[in-house]
């Protein structure tokens, strides 16, 4: 299994074939996604102007992205004015080196981390370990995943694939915790005790960022457990790694996002804790602050006028929770720290559509459209999936599919060819038809008939019947 990052180790269909067999994961995921779907609908229904807020959120992101350079420069200046330092990283390698160098410069042997997908994206933990620095994940789910030597399967609930009994076993083994029951409350308490000491003594913390305000240099972390507040407040040094698309121009622009994000992600009116800070606050919190601005393929996404919309994403994970493909195949099938519908469009784009495995992701969708309905910033994921398919296909080497598709297009371009093809098909299917249906097909369509029958071609097509009788009767 890959240790974070965004390069899928194999194509989606291969990975899904395996993950679909994990019945425990499928039960957990079905329960979790069904619960949160219903909750989300209730949370959203409470705000009568939800649609306008979505529209505003989308528009604000578009404005922020259209002049991204200007907003990043403004952010840089504001953070510096408030005593923080700003670093720029072209790719994951550069970003993890910046973070590891900073941690090493403070002589850190251990750092604490707030859940941050961007740090998973750049595979930070591996780099730190290689340099003798242990990164302690402080988010309960991330801790579970880390202790299990596993990878997250959900943006927001990374251990969604594990149930309480599995977690109890893990904590017993890894934390030596004495756990009378597997109640979530008991398990959470064990984590609290284990982490408390880390919070009070560790000198360097690493976080991501949910939003940043250019005008004021304010960075925002949205969380639930309080581990974020601990990491952002108690250490001496704070390093935040942020994708360049997270910037918003002005303070007031944060408003719709604080309405959209909690209701879309955890389906709450508001998450328990949100922290905002601007650079260094004298006498309060870390007195050294570093903001690492990460590109890692984002400028390529920005350059594509259709794909750009992807950068509006606020990582709420609503699209995962409503996705029927995600619900069954699970997050690991996507082979990237970005699973689900957003992963299916973001991962291949971050890799410039040059990674064959990632390029299988845009097809990991039935285009049912549930994700677009749920997305708080109105990313038209189905449309972008189709667009990416169109970008990837022409560069594939010709195969049975492309030949079939090109032939079909040639046939459809002339009605007489279409009619001729139908007649031929009727003859060709002869040996395959049993009781009026086709049960097994060779080649391309074999996947279909592995679980469903296919109707046979009728004796006459519509156009033939129409000529004979339809136009009169």
């Amino acid at each position, binding site marked *: 299994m890959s240790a974070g990052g965004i390069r899928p180790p194999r194509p989606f269909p291969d990975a899904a074939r395996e993950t679909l067999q994990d019945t425990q994961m499928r039960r957990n995921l079905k329960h*979790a996604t069904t619960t*949160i779907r219903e909750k989300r609908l209730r949370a959203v229904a409470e*705000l009568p102007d939800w649609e306008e807020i979505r529209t505003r959120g989308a528009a*604000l992101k578009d404005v922020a992205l*259209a002049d*991204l350079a200007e907003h*990043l*420069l403004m952010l840089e200046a504001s953070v510096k004015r408030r005593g923080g330092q700003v670093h*720029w990283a*072209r790719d994951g390698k*550069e970003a993890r080196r910046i973070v590891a160098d900073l941690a090493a410069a403070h002589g850190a042997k251990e750092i604490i981390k707030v859940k941050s997908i961007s740090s998973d994206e750049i595979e930070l933990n591996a780099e730190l370990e290689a340099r003798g620095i242990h990164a302690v994940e402080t*988010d*309960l789910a991330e801790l579970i995943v880390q202790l299990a030597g596993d990878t997250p399967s959900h943006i927001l*609930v990374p*251990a*969604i694939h594990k*149930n*309480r009994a599995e977690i109890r076993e893990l904590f017993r083994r890894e934390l030596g915790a004495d756990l009378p029951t597997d109640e*979530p*409350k008991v398990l*959470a308490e064990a984590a*609290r005790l284990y*982490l408390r000491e880390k*919070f009070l003594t560790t000198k360097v913390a690493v976080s991501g960022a949910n939003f940043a305000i250019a005008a*004021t240099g*304010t960075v925002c972390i949205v969380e*639930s*457990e*309080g581990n974020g*507040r*601990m990491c*952002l*407040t108690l250490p001496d040094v704070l390093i935040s790694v942020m994708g360049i698309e997270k910037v918003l121009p*002005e*303070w*007031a622009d*944060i*408003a*719709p996002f*604080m*309405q959209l994000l909690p209701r879309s992600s*955890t389906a*709450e*009116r*508001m998450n*328990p*804790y*949100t922290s*905002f*800070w*601007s*650079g260094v*606050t004298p*006498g*309060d919190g870390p007195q050294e602050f570093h903001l690492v601005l990460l590109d890692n393929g984002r*400028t*390529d996404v*920005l*350059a594509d*006028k259709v794909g750009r919309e992807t950068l509006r994403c606020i990582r709420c994970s609503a699209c995962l929770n409503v996705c029927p493909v995600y619900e069954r195949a699970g997050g690991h099938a996507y082979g990237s720290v970005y699973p689900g519908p957003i992963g299916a469009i973001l991962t291949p784009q971050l890799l410039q559509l040059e990674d064959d495995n990632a390029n299988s992701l845009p097809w990991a969708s039935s285009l049912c459209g549930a994700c677009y309905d749920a997305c708080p910033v109105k990313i038209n994921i189905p449309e972008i999936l189709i667009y990416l398919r169109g970008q990837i296909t022409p560069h594939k080497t010709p195969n049975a599919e492309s030949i079939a598709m090109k032939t079909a297009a040639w046939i459809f371009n002339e009605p007489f060819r279409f009619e001729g093809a139908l007649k031929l098909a009727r003859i060709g299917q002869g040996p395959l038809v049993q009781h009026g249906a086709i049960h097994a097909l060779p080649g391309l369509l074999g996947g279909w008939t592995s679980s469903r029958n296919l109707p046979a071609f009728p004796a006459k097509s519509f156009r033939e019947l129409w000529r004979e009788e339809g136009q009169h009767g």
Partner: protein
Amino acid sequence: MGNEARLEILTRINRATAAGERPQVERTAVPASVRPHAEIVAQFAEYAAEYRAEVHRVSEAELAALLTKLLAAQNVLVPEGFPAQVLLQLTPRKPQATHADLAAYDAVLTTCAVAIAETGTVVLDHGPGQGRRALTLIPDRHICVVRSEQVVESVPQAVAALQAAVEAGRPLTWISGPSATSDIELSRVEGVHGPRRLEIVLVE
């Protein structure tokens, strides 16, 4: 190397965004509420309680007595700037402590900057009476005094009200109920790392 990366990223962005239209948004003032304020305050109390904050609604006259009762026999931390007249016999402690010292307190008593009805949230801007962030994080019980005139209806109204604090460089902590996790089978557990008890004293 640092400057090289900066230059390259900015160049790539400029190239990516050079063409294309410039979308616009209108940034208009947040409209005032039309609902009666008492209703908004009641909604705040209800929603905060739904998120498992313990809510006490008192008049100005009852405040001191309630606080005395709540904090009896407790080792209480009171940040500087907390209004002295309501403290009565409570002795404010000077919060110059280290993190470990803070852990020795049973509770912390603060004011807040603004409260949001739509979400049951209290917001600290860590000004006078609220203290630096660690004070409201380490002790296991947080008692927050909210005055009814501090309650706004919506998130955008709160954001507008916090503009000055943010521009002054102050950090903000938005608190909606005690800390919680739903990481295990999505079942909610209250009280993970922050204060496990949040009490809101709503003064009307």
